[in-house]
């Protein structure tokens, strides 16, 4: 049975890729170009000093990149839902649609987004010459990328899957104003919740096992260890996906 | 096949009988498989099954399990030919009566038609 699942997953993942490849290209371009903003901006619009020369600001590049990443949510949603026609009806009759289709629909944006963030981090570090050694930088970028990704984009991808099934279930027409409003309001509140809200309550309300301590490589001294609710986020993602699956059983196409 | 003039299976049975009468199918020949005949005439395969059953009932064909349906060896092709002719004749006769004409008119009409046909072939 699991062999078949893999085959079906490949099929559904391929379909997701075909639907969203312009979005992927857009993010790839953004990941490549945006760090230049952080790098170039201070040099062009700098502090007015000539000496010492202004330092590049990798955080700016990362921040703009992140905002754009969230804004590209809209792009993703439009691409995926605008012109699918009746294919979902036919696919609905695949015995793997309920599970493999749903998981593929989650994995595609989550993987793309996480890669985007990691690429952004690596590229930023390279440009800002924050390069100590390959293992160190890679480790840091991967960790921060995956960490940040699971903190925001992974639950966000889960939420998107839930949203689509919600729209089907309650028959909000895709291109209607209510659907768009629900989508934008939902995305915004989700983003706030993930990036802002939960961090704030993390230390106080969440149990120990839901917090993840950032691990630094040997020999690096860091004062104060960030505590972020990584596992809580992943748990939330699973909740979203489970809920989406449950609603999916009641949708009508 | 004309759906308005009666059950299709009877029309199809008549057509196959005509093939045998004309010599397109000989006694002992294998009739096309159900699906092929269904495709050729664009009819339901169950209808073709009914056709073959009807031909069996008329003792024109027989089905051998696993091998298909065959025209019977002992089928009287002449009798079939005459039966078909009689069918055509009775339709013709009905037309004659409907027009209020007589047997002589019918014979004259036939002669005329056969002359025309001979002319066509010669000319």
């Amino acid at each position, binding site marked *: 049975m699991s062999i078949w699942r893999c*085959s*079906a997953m490949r099929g559904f993942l*391929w379909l997701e890729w075909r639907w969203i490849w312009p979005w992927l290209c857009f993010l790839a371009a953004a990941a490549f170009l945006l760090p230049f903003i952080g790098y170039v901006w201070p040099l062009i619009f700098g502090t007015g000093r000539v000496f010492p020369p202004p330092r590049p600001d990798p955080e700016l590049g990362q921040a703009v990149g992140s905002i754009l990443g969230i804004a590209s949510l809209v792009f993703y949603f439009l691409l995926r839902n605008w012109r699918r026609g009746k294919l979902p009806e036919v696919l609905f009759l695949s*015995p*793997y649609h309920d599970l493999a289709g749903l998981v593929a629909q989650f994995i595609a944006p989550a993987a793309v987004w996480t890669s985007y963030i990691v690429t952004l981090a690596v590229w930023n570090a390279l440009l800002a010459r924050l390069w100590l050694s390959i293992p160190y930088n890679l480790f840091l970028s991967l960790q921060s990328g995956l960490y940040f990704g699971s903190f925001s984009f992974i639950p966000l991808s889960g939420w998107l899957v839930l949203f689509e099934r919600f729209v089907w279930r309650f028959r909000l027409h895709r291109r209607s104003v209510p659907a768009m409003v629900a989508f934008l309001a939902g995305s915004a509140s989700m983003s706030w919740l993930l990036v802002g809200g939960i961090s704030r309550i993390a230390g106080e309300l969440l149990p120990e096992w839901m917090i993840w301590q950032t691990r630094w490589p040997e020999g690096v001294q860091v004062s104060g260890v960030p505590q972020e609710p990584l596992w809580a986020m992943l748990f939330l993602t699973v909740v979203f996906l489970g809920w989406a699956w449950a609603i999916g059983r009641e949708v009508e196409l | 096949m004309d*759906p308005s003039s009666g*059950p299709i299976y009877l029309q199809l049975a008549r057509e196959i009988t005509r093939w045998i009468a004309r010599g397109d199918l000989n006694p002992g020949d294998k009739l096309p498989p159900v699906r092929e005949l*269904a495709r050729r005439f664009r009819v*339901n395969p169950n209808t073709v099954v*009914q056709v073959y059953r009807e031909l069996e009932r008329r003792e024109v064909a027989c089905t051998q399990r696993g091998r298909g349906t065959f025209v019977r060896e002992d089928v009287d092709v002449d009798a079939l030919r005459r039966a078909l002719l009689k069918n055509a004749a009775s339709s013709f006769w009905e037309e004659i009566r409907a027009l209020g004409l007589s047997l002589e008119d019918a014979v004259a009409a036939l002669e005329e038609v056969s002359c025309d046909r001979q002319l066509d072939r010669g000319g």
Partner: protein
Amino acid sequence: MIASLTGVVKRYGAVEALRGVDLELRKGEIVGLLGPNGSGKTTLLKVLAGLLLPDHGRVTVLGDSPRRRKGSIAYLPELPFLTAWMTPIGVEKFFRHVFPSFQAERFWELVRLLDVPPYPVRRLSKGERARLELASILAITADLYLLDEPLGGLDPVSRDRILRSVIAAWRQEVCFVIATHLVAEAECLFDRVVLLGDGRVVLDAVAEELRKRGKGVRDVYLEVFGDAGLPVA
């Protein structure tokens, strides 16, 4: 028995698309679902496929709810469903993964029968696209095939090939339900015809029985639905 509908009612908001439909579908049958536009044919097929859930009544496929029998039902929508960039090879690869009972050899045989060129959908004519879509659905080995207007708006050659390929795909163990309003062309194909008017089954009869009484299916259709295309009385 392959599928059944008992007292099925389906509403879209205030409109009742199906008003208490009773229907039984058996093995080896090709059933023609006939009726004017808006009579509920598409809704009925979607309820059978499990895409829609009835508001009242019961629908079973192979003894269970259609959603639990997803591998056994194949559905061809009325509107085009393949995306512009799909080629026959792409369709085969994709469907092979997603539908476990999809048979590649049968697909290519149907593609040959239906004369589908090997180009992406955006380069195909309407008839070629419809034929490719039919091939992809008929290549799925299912117990119940639901075809919604497979002949609609197509040229005569396409219609002819489509009817012949349905015959080629027919098996004694499966049931076909074909919704169409091109009655004259397809009627010889049907074992049974179900006339649907305004969400109700107006007539459910064996086609050859109708013909024994001297009426073709098309004559009966015109009798039932009249010149205005609406049920008479």
